[in-house]
C-alpha cells in the first residue's frame, strides 16, 4: 500500500515519451498487450514464472484447429480491407481520371460494381437454404421470448461495421482533444485572465487528486497516472530483493492476497462523474471538448489554431464536416 501511494506522490515528472507512447497507442488503435502484464505485481520469482510461461506459449505448437481458425480470421479481415490508395495501380488509374469511391466503365452506369465480389467458402454438403434454416432454428431456440430476430442482412452488418469504425476514430480523436486540453490547462506560460478563472486546474495535474481535474480530460490524467504507478511499482520491485511474497497461485483467495500484500490497491475507488462522462458516445465527448476549447481557449480543434479573439474569424464552424 505504501509503495503504491508513494508512486502516485512521487510521480512528479511525467516524461513526454511516456505520454507520447500512450497517445500513439490510442491513435493507432492497437490492442495493448495483455493487460495482466501491466496490472500484476511482479516479483523476480513471478517474473521467472512469467518468462517460463511465455517461453512455453511461444514454443506451443498451435493445434490445427487453432491455426485454421487464425487463418480464417486473417482471411476475412483481409477480404474486408480495401486496397490502399497508395498502390501504384491506383495512381495509374487516377491519371486516367479515376476517383476513389467511383466505379469503372461508362460514366453514369449505375449498376457498375464498386466492391469486389465476396468470397464464401461452403463447408460440408448442406443443401441450399440449410444454413439459413439452421440459423433460424438457433435463433428460435435462443430468443424464444423475444421472437425471431431479424436476419441480419449484409447491409446491416456493413452499417454496424462503419459505425464501429467511426466510433473508434472518434475515440482516438477524443484522446487527441484531451491532450490538447491538458496542454492548454497546464501550460503556465499561456496564462491569461481566462486562465485565472480556471486557475485551480493549473500546474502538474498529477500532484493532486484526480477528481479535481475537469472531467473532460480527467481520463487522460488518470490513465497516465495508472501507467506511471505501475511502472514505478515494477521498478521498485526490481530494486527490492527482500520481497519474497511472490505468489502466483490461482487458488489463492482474495483475502489472502490482500493479507500478503499482493492484492492491487484500488486508488480511484469511485468516480461517478467520470463514469457518467465516459458512458457518453465518443462523438458527444469530443463535441464537448471541442466546445470547451473554443470557449475557453479560442482554439479550434479542427483548424488546429488558436485564434486571437473570441470571434474566431476564419474558422468555418464547430464541426469537423464544416472543415471539409
Amino acid at each position: 500500500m505504501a509503495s503504491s501511494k508513494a508512486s502516485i506522490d512521487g510521480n512528479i515528472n511525467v516524461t513526454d515519451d511516456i505520454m507520447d507512447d500512450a497517445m500513439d497507442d490510442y491513435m493507432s488503435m492497437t490492442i495493448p498487450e495483455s493487460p495482466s502484464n501491466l496490472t500484476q505485481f511482479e516479483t523476480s520469482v513471478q517474473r521467472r514464472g512469467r518468462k517460463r510461461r511465455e517461453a512455453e506459449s511461444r514454443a506451443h505448437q498451435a493445434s490445427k484447429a487453432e491455426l485454421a481458425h487464425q487463418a480464417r480470421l486473417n482471411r476475412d479481415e483481409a477480404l474486408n480491407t480495401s486496397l490502399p490508395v497508395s498502390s501504384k495501380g491506383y495512381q495509374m488509374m487516377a491519371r486516367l481520371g479515376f476517383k476513389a469511391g467511383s466505379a469503372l466503365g461508362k460514366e453514369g452506369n449505375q449498376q457498375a460494381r464498386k466492391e469486389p465480389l465476396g468470397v464464401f467458402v461452403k463447408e460440408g454438403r448442406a443443401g441450399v437454404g440449410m444454413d439459413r434454416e439452421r440459423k433460424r432454428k438457433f435463433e428460435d431456440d435462443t430468443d424464444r421470448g423475444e421472437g425471431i430476430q431479424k436476419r441480419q442482412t449484409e447491409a446491416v452488418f456493413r452499417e454496424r461495421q462503419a459505425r464501429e469504425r467511426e466510433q473508434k476514430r472518434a475515440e482516438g480523436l477524443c484522446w487527441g482533444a484531451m491532450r490538447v486540453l491538458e496542454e492548454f490547462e497546464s501550460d503556465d506560460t499561456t496564462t491569461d485572465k481566462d486562465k485565472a478563472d480556471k486557475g485551480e486546474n493549473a500546474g502538474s495535474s498529477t500532484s493532486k487528486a484526480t477528481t479535481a481535474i475537469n472531467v473532460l480530460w480527467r481520463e487522460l490524467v488518470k490513465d497516465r497516472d495508472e501507467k506511471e504507478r505501475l511502472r514505478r511499482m515494477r521498478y521498485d520491485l526490481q530494486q527490492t530483493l527482500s520481497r519474497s511474497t511472490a505468489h502466483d497461485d490461482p487458488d489463492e483467495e482474495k483475502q489472502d492476497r490482500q493479507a500478503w500484500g499482493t492484492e492491487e490497491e484500488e486508488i480511484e475507488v469511485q468516480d461517478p462523474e467520470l463514469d457518467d462522462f465516459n458512458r457518453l458516445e465518443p462523438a458527444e465527448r469530443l463535441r464537448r471538448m471541442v466546445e470547451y476549447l473554443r470557449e475557453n481557449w479560442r482554439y479550434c480543434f479542427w483548424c488546429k489554431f488558436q485564434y486571437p479573439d473570441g470571434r474566431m474569424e476564419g474558422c468555418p464552424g464547430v464541426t469537423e464536416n464544416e472543415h471539409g
Partner: protein
Amino acid sequence: MADRRPDLEDGGRPVKRLRTEDSDPKTNPYLAHMYQDQPDDSGYNTGYSNGYGHGNGVKLKPEGRSASSTGFGKMPRHQTTADMARRAEDGPNNPFSGQPLSKKYLGILNTRRGLPVHAQRDEFLKMYQKSQILIFVGETGSGKTTQIPQFVLFDDQPHIQRKLVACTQPRRVAAMSVAQRVADEMDVKLGEEVGYNIRFEDVTGPKTILKYMTDGMLLREAMNDNDLKRYSTIILDEAHERTLATDTLMGLLKEVVQRRPDLKIVVMSATLDAQKFQSYFNDAPLLAVPGRTHPVEIFYTQAPERDYVEAALRTVLQIHATEPEGDILLFLTGEEEIEDACRKINLEVDEMIREVDAGPLKVYPLYGTLPPMQQQRIFDPAPTSRIPGGRPGRKCIVSTNIAETSLTIDGIVYVVDPGFSKQKVYNPRIRVESLLVSAISKASAQQRAGRAGRTRPGKCFRLYTEDAFKKELIETTYPEILRSNLSSTVLDLKKLGIDDLVHFDLMDPPAPETLMRALEELNYLACLDDDGELTALGQLASEFPLDPALAVMLISSPEFYCSNEILSLTALLSVPQIFVRPASARKRADEMKALFAHPDGDHLTMLNVYHAFKSPPAQENPKQWCHEHFLSLRALQSADNVRLQLKRIMESREVELVSTPFEDKKYYENIRRALVAGFFMQVAMKDAGSKTYVTIKDNQNVLLHPSTVLQTEGEWLVYNEFVLTTKNFVRTVTTVKAEWLLDIAPNYYDLSTFTKGPVKSALERAVQKIRRKDAQKSQYSKK
C-alpha cells in the same frame, strides 16, 4: 461488286444450263426430279473462282431472277431472301465450292430445314440486312450455332469481298466440333471453306470463308488488327455465357463498329437477359426464336436438405423406381463428387434389380476433364428392358454444369438439381483465384429445368425449397469478368489500343480494385511503366497466349541459361493436371509420382516427368508408359503441342533457346531462379514454429497442398496457385532463396514497402547476408 467480275454474265449462264440438264443423277438422285434442264458441270467444276463468279447482282433486279436460278449470280448481296438461299442450297452443285453435292449433304439438308431457326430465316435476313448489330436469342437446340452462320454466308457472300465470317465460341471443343459439323452440312472439307482456329491450332486455309474460333482467338487477332478488317461479319455465339473474352470483345466491337460501318455484328444468346445485350448495344434490334421445348413440371423439397449429394442419389433412385420411361440428368459440382455418385448409384441399382426387379440403369459421368471418348458415351442409347414388356431401362447422366447450356442430350426427361455448381472466384484483396462450390443463380436453375423438356414434357426436381429458390439464389450468374484476375485482360486491352481503361465501356465493369491490382501486377512485372504504358517487355509478353507472369518468366529465362527447360515448364503449367490419381489406386499412383519427385519442389518434378516422357523408352509406347506411371497421356501430348507453338513464337521473336548442362550443379538452381523472375509475387514464407506458410505482402496463412512432393521444407517458396477450400492451400510449389527474391525482383522486394513483421525481418536478415558476402568478396579480391 459487280465490276469485280467481268465474266459475270458468262458465269450466270452456265447456271441456268446447269439446271436444265439432268446428267448427274448419281450425285443427286434425290433432286433429279427437280431439274428441268441439263446441268453443265464444267461451269462449276472450274472451281472456286467460278463459283464465286456469280456473286454480283446488285444490278440485277429481283424480278430478273428465274425460279431455277442458283449460285450467287442472282443473289444480290444483302438483299437475298430465304427463298433464294434455299434454291442455292438445293444444288445440284455446291454454291461455294462448285463441286457436285453429295448424297450425305442432301440427307442433312432435310434435317436442317426442320430446325426451329429455319422458320424465321426471312425475318432474320431482313433484320440482318437492315441493322449493323443484331441480337439473336435462341435456345440451345434451336440450331443457331450451325445455321445462323450459314444464313449469313449466303447473304453476306464474304468470298466476293475477300473477307471472312467469324463465329466465336467460348469453348475450344465446341469450336472444333461445330466447325466439323458445319463443314459436313456445307459438303466441304474441314479446313477449306469452313475451318476453325483455337489456341495452338489453326485449321483454316486460303479458301476459308467461315471460321469458327474461340472468343480468345478473335481477341488475339484484334491485337494485330485493331479494326478486324479481315471480317465482314462477326458472330458472337453463346454470349450469355459472358466469358472474359466475350465481354472484352463486346466492348471492343462497340468501338470498332463506329470506325467500320461495313462490319456487321450478330450477338447470339441462349437466355433471357437479352434486353441487357440490347441496351448495351445501343438498342439494337432483337430476334427471338422459340426453342422446341415442352412444359417442365417443377418440384421443390419441403425442407432444406442436410446433405445434397445424398438427397440427389435418393431422388435419382426414386425416379428410376417409380417414374415412367425417360433419361435422368443429375447436376453435381465436380469430378470427384460425380465419380463417387456414379459408383454409389451403380451399387444401389444392382440391388434394386435383384430385389425389386427394377429396369437396367446405365450411369455416365460427364465433366470437362473427361477424355472425349468417354464424353461421347453419354450419347449411347439407353439400355432396353431386360425382358420384353419388363420395366423400362434408362440412362442417368451425372454432370457438372457443362450440360446446362453447352451440351444438348436428347432423351432427358428428368432433371435433378441440387442447386450448386463450382464457380471461379477471384478477389483482388488477397489475390486468390479459385473454384468454389456456390449456389447457382435463378437463371441457371431455369436453364437446368429446361433440359428436361427437350423431347417431351418432363420433370425437374429441385433439392431446395421454393422459398430458398426465391430468396437465396441470385438472379443471374456473375460474368467471368467480375470473377477473374484481369492482368492478362489489361495487357490485351493495352495491345488493342485501348488506353482509357477506367472508362472502357464494359457490360459489367469489374470492381476498381480488380483493375488496380492488375495494373500493379503488370507494373511489377515491368510490362507497364509507371504511366501505364506498355513497355517493350509488355509488348513482347502480349505476343504469348499466356498469363503475364508466365510470359515474363519465359522471356527472361535465357538470362538464367534455362529457356529450354522453362519453355517445357510453361507448357506443362498451361495444360490440365498431368498426374492421374484414381480413387482405386491412390497408393500406387503416389509411389509412381515419387519416382519423379525432386526434393526442391513440384515444378522440378513436373519437368522430370516431361523429360522422362520424351525419353526413347517412354516414346516407344507412350500410352502404355503413361498408364504404368499414372500420367495423363492427353495432358502430356497437349503440353508437347503447346511447347511447340510457344517455341515458334520464341524463335520468331528471337528469344534464345539455351540450357545449362545437366551435369552442372547449377542446373536446377538456374531453373528455380528463372521461376522467381515470373512468380516473385506468388511467394510464401514459412511461419516459424509451425508447418504453415504466410503469403508475402497479403499475409495469408496457407498450407502446402497435400499433393506436393516437397520434402526439404524450405523457408521460402514460389507457388503456382493459391486455392481456397475450407483451408487455404498453395499448390505446385518450389523452394527458392530470399537472396534471389531481393536480387531478381528488387522493386517488389523494396523493404520500405513492407510492414513490420516476421517477413520483413527475414528479408532484412537476407539483405545483411548479401552485404556480408559482398564485403568478403571485395576483401578477397583486394588480397
